[in-house]
């Protein structure tokens, strides 16, 4: 390495003694190129780009050949508005320094680490989504009895979890007012977050640049000292239901919605970056001097690679081995997602659906097992997934796995669902059981250094037994591989070192 480590001011941490004359300029940056497939932004070469700058995005949704009712379309509950984006990459001088594919799926994983308080107070208003679970009760109303009084008027099963919904479920708008009714148990996304069919009224949401470009996590880019073009490219997702957005089963008047006929359109006039450029005049002179004539800076950063496979399950025992090609790279973690498509639920395609009776997994690196015993215990599986980011996945066990709900043959009895059958956006929340069963392996050591992988591929193995409820289901199996990269900025040019 030829450069120096990044100075404090180019990191995202709090600057210990910020310069008194520091300033922030916020520009509204519109794309230099835009269509319904992709867009490109070019940053001005000024100041230091705050990685917490925000991309604003909005879309409309219409149902062709529909009844014309209000669709109440919404963003997938587990990811929110990032569902509109398929891929983002950053180029400096034509060199691609960071490229995140299937961005919305990776954002689903990242979002699982948000605390409930952050989700409620920040993520949901800022990016939509709907994923805070609390205590709940059944949807059905019990006949009058002493038991029903104790159960707040609801039938069994008692003790389920679900999104916040009425404790009383009383009619408030139609007669007889005050009577308990199952319909009053149901919830939707906040009306202000519904995607409308009108570009003027549809809500816009914001996504941090560091969510789009992992390179910017921890790095403030000194645009003023880079002589090459710095650009951000956004590739949009297919404008279809369950991919870019979700629709309820019926519209606001109860007419069924054909989701195959629903399409979204990105609203061009609301698509922009609120770019914050930071200025610290005296420090910037020193940074410019470092970059132009003292060998510049070496910037270690995380690049998330993606590998995609496909698996179908049929009843009976199975062993699936997957090769992960990352020869020569320093790998910090591997995350495994198993996306099941075609599920009618609030999360759209942004899921990692577990098998009903679970599975046992292991990794092999250089022909050696990572785990001496395959990991079968789902709680340990989550513990290992927690270790990847060092922050626990904030989700209850019923969403992580079907274990504890099934009968041993993959069947869940009516009273055995851990989540409530109350509806959210017309879908039963029981559909979300086992929907976020992500697998994770942390490989970085205590000093944050990844493990150098030889040319021999890493092998990920799963084995278990498929029962009837999972028969003929399939999954897109994605591997997210966090690799340690290094680039150098010197003389105004960016060079990839590793």
């Amino acid at each position, binding site marked *: 390495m030829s450069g120096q480590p990044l100075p404090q001011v180019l990191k995202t941490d709090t600057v210990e003694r910020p310069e008194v004359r520091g300033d922030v300029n916020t520009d509204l940056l519109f794309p230099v190129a835009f269509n319904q497939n992709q867009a490109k932004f070019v940053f001005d070469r000024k100041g230091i780009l705050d990685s917490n700058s925000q991309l604003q995005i909005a879309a409309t949704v219409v149902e062709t050949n529909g009844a014309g009712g209000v669709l109440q379309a919404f963003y997938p509950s587990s990811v929110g508005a990032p569902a509109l984006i398929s891929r983002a990459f950053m180029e400096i001088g034509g060199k691609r320094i960071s490229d995140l594919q299937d961005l919305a799926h990776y954002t689903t994983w990242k979002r699982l680490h948000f605390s409930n308080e952050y989700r409620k107070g920040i993520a949901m208003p800022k990016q939509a989504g709907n994923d805070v679970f609390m205590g709940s009760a059944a949807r059905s109303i019990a006949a009058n009895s002493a*038991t029903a009084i104790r159960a707040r008027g609801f039938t069994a099963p*008692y003790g389920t979890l679900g999104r916040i919904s009425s404790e009383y479920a009383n009619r408030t708008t139609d007669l007889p007012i005050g009577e308990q009714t199952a319909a009053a148990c149901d919830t939707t996304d906040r009306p202000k977050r519904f995607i409308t069919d009108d570009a003027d009224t549809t809500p816009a949401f914001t996504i941090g640049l560091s969510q789009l470009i992992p390179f910017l996590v921890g790095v403030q880019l000194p645009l003023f000292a880079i002589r090459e073009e710095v650009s951000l490219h956004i590739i949009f997702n297919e404008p279809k239901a369950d991919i870019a957005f979700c629709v309820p089963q019926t519209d606001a008047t109860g007419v069924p919605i054909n989701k195959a006929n629903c399409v979204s359109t990105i609203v061009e006039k609301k698509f922009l970056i609120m770019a914050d450029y930071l200025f610290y005049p005296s420090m910037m002179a020193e940074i410019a001097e470092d970059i132009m004539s003292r060998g510049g800076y070496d910037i270690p950063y995380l690049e998330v690679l993606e590998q995609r496979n496909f698996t179908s399950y049929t009843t009976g025992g199975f062993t699936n081995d997957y090769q992960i090609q990352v020869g020569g790279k320093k790998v910090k973690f591997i995350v495994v997602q198993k996306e099941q498509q075609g599920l009618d639920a609030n999360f759209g395609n942004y899921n990692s659906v577990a098998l009903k009776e679970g599975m046992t997994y292991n990794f092999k690196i250089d022909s050696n097992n990572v785990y001496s015993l395959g990991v079968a215990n789902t*709680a340990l599986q989550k513990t290992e997934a927690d270790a990847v980011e060092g922050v626990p996945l904030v989700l*209850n066990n019923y969403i992580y796995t079907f274990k504890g709900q099934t009968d041993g043959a993959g069947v869940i009895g009516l009273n055995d669902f851990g989540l409530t059958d109350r509806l959210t956006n017309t879908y039963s929340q029981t559909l979300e059981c086992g929907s976020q069963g992500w697998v994770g392996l942390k490989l970085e*050591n*205590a000093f944050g250094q990844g493990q150098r992988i030889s040319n021999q591929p890493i092998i990920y193995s799963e084995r278990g037994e498929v029962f009837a409820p999972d028969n003929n289901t399939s999954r897109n199996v994605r591997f997210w591989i966090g690799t340690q990269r290094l680039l150098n900025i010197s003389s105004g040019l960016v060079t990839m070192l590793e």
Partner: protein
Amino acid sequence: MTTRRQYIQVLPTNLGDGVFSDRNGLAQVIFELPSVAKIMNGKSLRINGTFTLKQGDGTAPTNATQFFADAPTGDIMIDGRTGMSSFIETLSIQNLEGGTYSTIKAYNRMCASILPLNESIQNYLNGCDTTYGGLSKDVSTAKKVDKPFQFSLPLLDGFLQGNPIDMMLVKGLRIVITLAPSNFVVHNNYWRNTASTAGRANGGAYYELSDLVCSFETEVPDAEGQAAMMANMNGVLEYNTYTSFYSVLNSNDYNLSLNINTGRTLSVIGNMIPSEWLNNYQYNSQQTLQLIYENAGGVLENRVPIRAFTFTKGGLRLPLDFELDSEITQLAGTADSFKNWESLNIIRDGWSIYNFEKSLKTELSYPLSNTEPARFNRERYSIVEEDKRGQYNIGVGMDKITYNGMNFKGTPFGMRIQSIAVAGVSLQPHSIFLFVKHKNTIVFENGGVQIFM
């Protein structure tokens, strides 16, 4: 020196037929972790397994349909705030040569004070259930135990939660877990509904643990580093641990004097429970309420007002030179804020206190009158919020400035609990559990191990 992460899994040494239980298996679990040239991250250590709750006849509970029934059957459960931690009666951490680094008796009761101080009820409902196995809300925890479920339990012993551990220097580890009896871990819904008696039927409900594995992550140095670790015979390891004490309160002016004999004492954490409730299927043995007396129906549930706590060191009022007075607030039924602050401060630092079991929904949900129940009854449970059940910790923090603690060698620790006698009722004996949190130092010298308290 470079290192890499390695994950280690160890099966119980006394595996037997794989089932651990006080009914149908072994009541003690032993894990022996090898003496190898690796650095253990104790915080990552987990006891993984499957928990199964059974009625006396071996069938599964039926809380999902019976929890609110008039004459329920099969409504047995575990404590939701401590979850799986409730089955550990004694936790002992030793080396493979027999030396003991830490032993915590009544570990479950200690967790009953520590674990509920979580950030929010949502934390329990969205993650704690996978690791600790509890959902905090009784009705949700009851549903969870209807079917066997898997857990991945951290051990909250300071030896593990402190510094990284040189597995070679400590001479390997032997973790011995003595299981609590089933009538401690399992209970009926009797406190809410006196018709709930399923736990006692057919010889009593019981629990089983199976598929147990101890897992932890290590840092493995390169060959040179491992050689250096194997050659090293000397070192010092400092850690916090707990020493347990037990007493019984049976008067309205209760005085306790303990020779705790710890050199660097950080705090004394405690809780109490009617002695009758321990190891009793009818009640949750992990409850941490204040003193209570019987209502007209003969059920223990009304509060005995607390007048004051006094803590002494060698007869002098230390570290607080005043009484922790609760009389006015307790009689008025209002917020006992300073007492609460002190009891939180024994576990968390005063400046970083956050929790939910001291929220307005629990501690302050008591009715103003002391003649009314000390908790909300089942007719008024909240679906979405935490259960309105008190969390009454007792104790005192010793040193939140230097964290080096106070020296209690040769000077006893004293505690006085004054309560206000309630006319016409007798005071039931209450068990007091105290956990002295203190610093230990292990000195490794030429292959020998010495522990300094």
